[in-house]
């Protein structure tokens, strides 16, 4: 009986954790994959794996990076499983148009389309920094890169993104 109650408490805590984190996890998976259906699959599979492995999460404060690491692994697995075909970028943008559109804000929609065009090596660290609030050191640890390499990717990513958005880049420093 005691174990049953303990199990219920544990389940409730895990549910609450998933409930809190899911929107950001789904956003991260979406920007990683640029495919909402795939992102939903990846997040679902991530939560199921996390449920199975929840005993390895010793500190709830570390839950977000823990989930993100699982998401990245799951996303890589989905590539191995399906050997995803190369998709034309315009086709990709058109397919995800409902997600990219921003009510009454064409500029935001254009920025989202520009993010789609940014190569993954720049898009992923940018999303980790801007959306997930990761520090350079945390991004470096997650992506298994040096701090200097992360800084270079963030710098180049912003330069490219600003150019894609038609921002004035005349004062940007040269690489």
């Amino acid at each position, binding site marked *: 009986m005691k174990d049953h109650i303990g199990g219920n408490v544990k389940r409730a805590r895990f549910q609450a954790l*998933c409930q809190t984190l899911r929107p950001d996890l789904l956003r991260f998976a979406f920007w990683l994959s640029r495919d909402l259906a795939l992102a939903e699959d990846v997040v679902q599979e991530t939560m199921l794996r996390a449920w199975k492995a929840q005993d390895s999460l010793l500190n709830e404060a570390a839950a977000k990076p823990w989930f993100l690491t699982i998401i990245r692994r799951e996303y890589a697995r989905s590539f191995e499983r399906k050997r995803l075909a190369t998709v034309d970028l315009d086709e990709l943008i058109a397919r995800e148009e409902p997600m990219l559109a*921003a009510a009454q804000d064409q500029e*935001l929609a254009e920025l989202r389309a520009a993010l789609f065009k940014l190569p993954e090596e720049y898009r992923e660290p940018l999303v980790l*920094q801007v959306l997930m609030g990761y520090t350079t050191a945390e991004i470096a640890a997650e992506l298994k890169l040096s701090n200097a390499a992360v800084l270079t990717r963030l710098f180049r990513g912003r330069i490219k993104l600003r150019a894609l958005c038609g921002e004035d880049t005349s004062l940007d420093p040269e690489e």
Partner: protein
Amino acid sequence: MMNCAQYRRAILAEPHAADPELAAHLQGCRDCAGFTERLLRFEGRLELAMRVDTPAASASGGRAAGLRRGWLAMAASVLILVAAGSLWLAAPNRSLAADVVAHMAGEPQAWARTDIAVPPADLAEVLSGAHMRLGPGAGMVSYASSCTFRGRLVPHLVVQTAMGPITVMVLVHDSVSKQAPFDKEGYHGVIVPVPGHGSIAVLARGQEADLRAVEEIAARVQSAIVWTGAGTGS
């Protein structure tokens, strides 16, 4: 001493870096101050762009994953509850507060403690877009900018008070039915209805921020606003 190229390279990698060397360069370089302001504005938009609305999860999952394995049945309840968790994004007042807080991320420089007031002509220009002016009762305005918020230009002001800088956003296109306090991501604030003119959001940041004091300042700012044009009627 850092030069402009080094400074810009550094902030293009970490726009919110709190390095004293960067701050020292910024203080003495007008060109880089303008560059930083434009970059931080872009960053605010970028964060909003990344914050796409997330659809609620379905119990049957996405395209490929099915609840095939035995242990998954127990986890299914997790997914169903998670669906409810996504619904907060659809709650309009919560979302308005969330959007205000997200906007703050793009303009950290606005929060500086200072005793330098915005020139009256600059302030008047920012406020004229919302068909308003501000009487002296509001306090000293140290920052005034016309910001894009939910696709429209709105006045974003910072008023210096005894408890530090307080941000005021005049949201003439966003109505709320009643006063709505919020405490989110380190910001304490309140969204106050302004009949016929949408609402105003007033917020402070940090642990020392006192919601009651913020509400008093909101009332003070509201009574100092003089509307010079027709309301939105919303």
